[in-house]
């Protein structure tokens, strides 16, 4: 069907929230302090051509060589990771450390594992390259109804170009938080499949605290079953180029997802996230909230948020937003929300995106109240990012992230 016609039909009547954007975005005086604001209901968004119809393949040879002009690559510095899109990848096992937890298993499984390919398939060449390359998949399998938290750490990937595959499965009615903690150096392209059985309640946190030189291209594919709930969190702080693209299919009736993102780009860093939510079942609900800060010369962030409300998805409710806070000159934040609606029967669909600047006038105002420059920056950034941090739901991780953010601010992060 034509996405454009679906949009023009829906945009005028079924996008209630977007006509009243959140207080802070609607009142930012456009142009003052360099604030750019985007929030709409009637105009302003560019629909993707039916996102669900994008070409998919697990075979790298099915994709043309990457030029950087493709929709999925056009914001990324593709010349800096041709090894990951065009080279041969090492798909062997690597060292992982995981905290022990009852009812959670972490093991290597063969490519023939039945779960592989059930949550999603690659839509671009780096993902397909990784898929073609991996020898075994790392499988994290969660069962048991008690809440529990497990951290899986990768710290020794090194500089060899790698392809990897991970499965995170939450059995029906199970509950857990799985933290994927990434540190050290890496040149990695990977796919992560996240499978939620009926009524499972799973939080997945992908935490990027890579070394300065690391390049990480990740695609997360999630499939959320009936009445299941996925909280997915992308935290990108360290790394040279970090691109984590979560793609969530709300596959079962009543399924629910909260997609959170937190990123802090400093000088020279490229942090990107392309978020896709596919409402493919009735009464499904999604919320997307990504917030980023940028500081330093050539700090660069990209957020693309696609929401597709499919024709099976009657009674859905969705809202996505991205906000960026610019802390210095020389940065660039792209923020592109897309909404595509194939059914007229929805509870709500809206989006907002705004990029605000912390500027000298704000600094002067805070200082004129006795607050030091350093404290002023900390106040603003903490205030801005806390909303996301607090929703993660892991007190220990939240406390750690507050410290990590402050370290980013004063440039003392030892990356």
């Amino acid at each position, binding site marked *: 069907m034509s996405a454009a016609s679906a949009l023009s039909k829906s945009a005028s009547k079924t996008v209630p929230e977007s006509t009243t954007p959140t*207080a*802070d975005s*609607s*009142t*930012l*005086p456009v142009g003052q*302090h360099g604030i750019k604001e985007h929030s709409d209901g009637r105009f302003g968004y560019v629909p993707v051509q039916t996102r669900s119809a994008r070409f998919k393949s697990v075979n790298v040879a099915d994709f043309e060589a990457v030029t950087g002009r493709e929709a999925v690559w056009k914001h990324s510095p593709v010349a800096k990771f041709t090894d990951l899109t065009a080279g041969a990848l090492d798909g062997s096992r690597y060292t992982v450390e995981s905290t022990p937890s009852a009812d959670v298993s972490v093991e290597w499984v063969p490519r023939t594992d039945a779960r592989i390919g059930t949550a999603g398939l690659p839509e671009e060449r780096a993902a397909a390259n990784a898929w073609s390359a991996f020898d075994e998949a790392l499988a994290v399998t969660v069962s048991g109804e008690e809440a529990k938290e497990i951290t899986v750490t990768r710290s020794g990937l090194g500089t060899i170009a790698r392809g990897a595959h991970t499965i995170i499965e939450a059995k029906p009615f199970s509950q857990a938080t799985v933290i994927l903690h990434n540190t050290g150096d890496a040149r990695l392209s990977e796919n992560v499949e996240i499978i939620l059985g009926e009524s499972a309640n799973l939080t997945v946190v992908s935490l990027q605290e890579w070394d300065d030189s690391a390049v990480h291209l990740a695609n997360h594919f999630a499939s959320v079953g009936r009445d299941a709930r996925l909280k997915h969190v992308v935290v990108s702080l360290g790394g040279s180029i970090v691109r984590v693209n979560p793609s969530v299919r709300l596959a079962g009736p009543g399924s629910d997802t909260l997609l959170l993102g937190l990123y802090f780009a400093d000088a020279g860093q490229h942090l990107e996230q392309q978020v896709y939510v596919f409402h493919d079942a009735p009464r499904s609900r999604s919320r997307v909230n990504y917030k980023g800060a940028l500081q330093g010369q050539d700090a660069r962030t990209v957020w693309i948020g696609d929401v597709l409300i499919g024709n099976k998805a009657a009674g859905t409710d969705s809202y996505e937003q991205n906000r960026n*806070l610019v802390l210095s000159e020389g940065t660039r934040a792209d923020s592109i929300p897309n909404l595509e609606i194939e059914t007229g029967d929805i509870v709500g669909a809206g989006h907002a995106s705004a990029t*605000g600047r*912390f500027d*000298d*006038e*704000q600094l*002067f*105002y*805070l*200082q*004129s*109240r*006795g*607050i*030091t*420059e350093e*404290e002023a920056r900390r*106040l*603003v*950034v*903490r*205030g*801005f*990012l806390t909303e996301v941090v607090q929703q993660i739901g892991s007190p220990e991780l939240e406390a750690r992230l507050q410290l990590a953010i402050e370290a980013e601010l004063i440039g003392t992060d030892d990356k």
Partner: protein
Amino acid sequence: MSVLEIKDLHVSVETDQGTKQILRGVNLTINEGEIHAIMGPNGSGKSTLAYTIAGHPKYHVESGSILLDGAEVLTMTVDARARAGLFLAMQYPVEIPGVTVTNFLRTAKTAIEGEAPPIRTWIKDVRQAMTNLRMDKTFAERNVNEGFSGGEKKRNEILQLELLKPKFAVLDETDSGLDVDALKIVSEGVNRAKANTGLGLLLITHYTRILRYIHPDFVHVFVNGKIAEQGGPELADRLEDEGYDRFLVPSNVG
């Protein structure tokens, strides 16, 4: 007894057309507990004086000095001036994304006092001050000045004045853009602050109407970057009747 002295202050700004002289020798002494009104036409340099006292980096002091109890203010950072006891209620208060009023007030109070205020009394003080200024409770959780109306921004400035308890406050056109009800509420706040702390006030205004509610001890007419005339409250009445025309004789017809 605190005193704020401004001595032969010359200030310029950089513009696209080059350096522009704004203040041309301002002299003014304010003692604790005194209210000085500075009145002058638009563009005469009133805000420049206010910003220079607060230390805005855009304004270059060419010569002169500002002393607070004998200590040179001009060499202090902006935040140090606030901690030394100076406060500026701005003509155009700035929006701060991501920072709630509550968080902002507590951080500022902590910075100025050098230690966090005792939580229980602080919360009570903030509530009381907000009630006095007829500010809705929901203000506390909104981001500083974000989406505030003009009147709400001005109340928020006076809220800070009452809570931060400076020795000297400069109020830059706090009255402009306020309807009469808001003007009364804001004026009450200023008078309350003075009654409670005995601060000295520099009240910058274009119109005389705020002087009905806040009674100055001294009135200074500010024209072309300096004080052209000074007197008591009666000078304000004269300005009310005659306007500024008398001071604007075109001396530099060219």
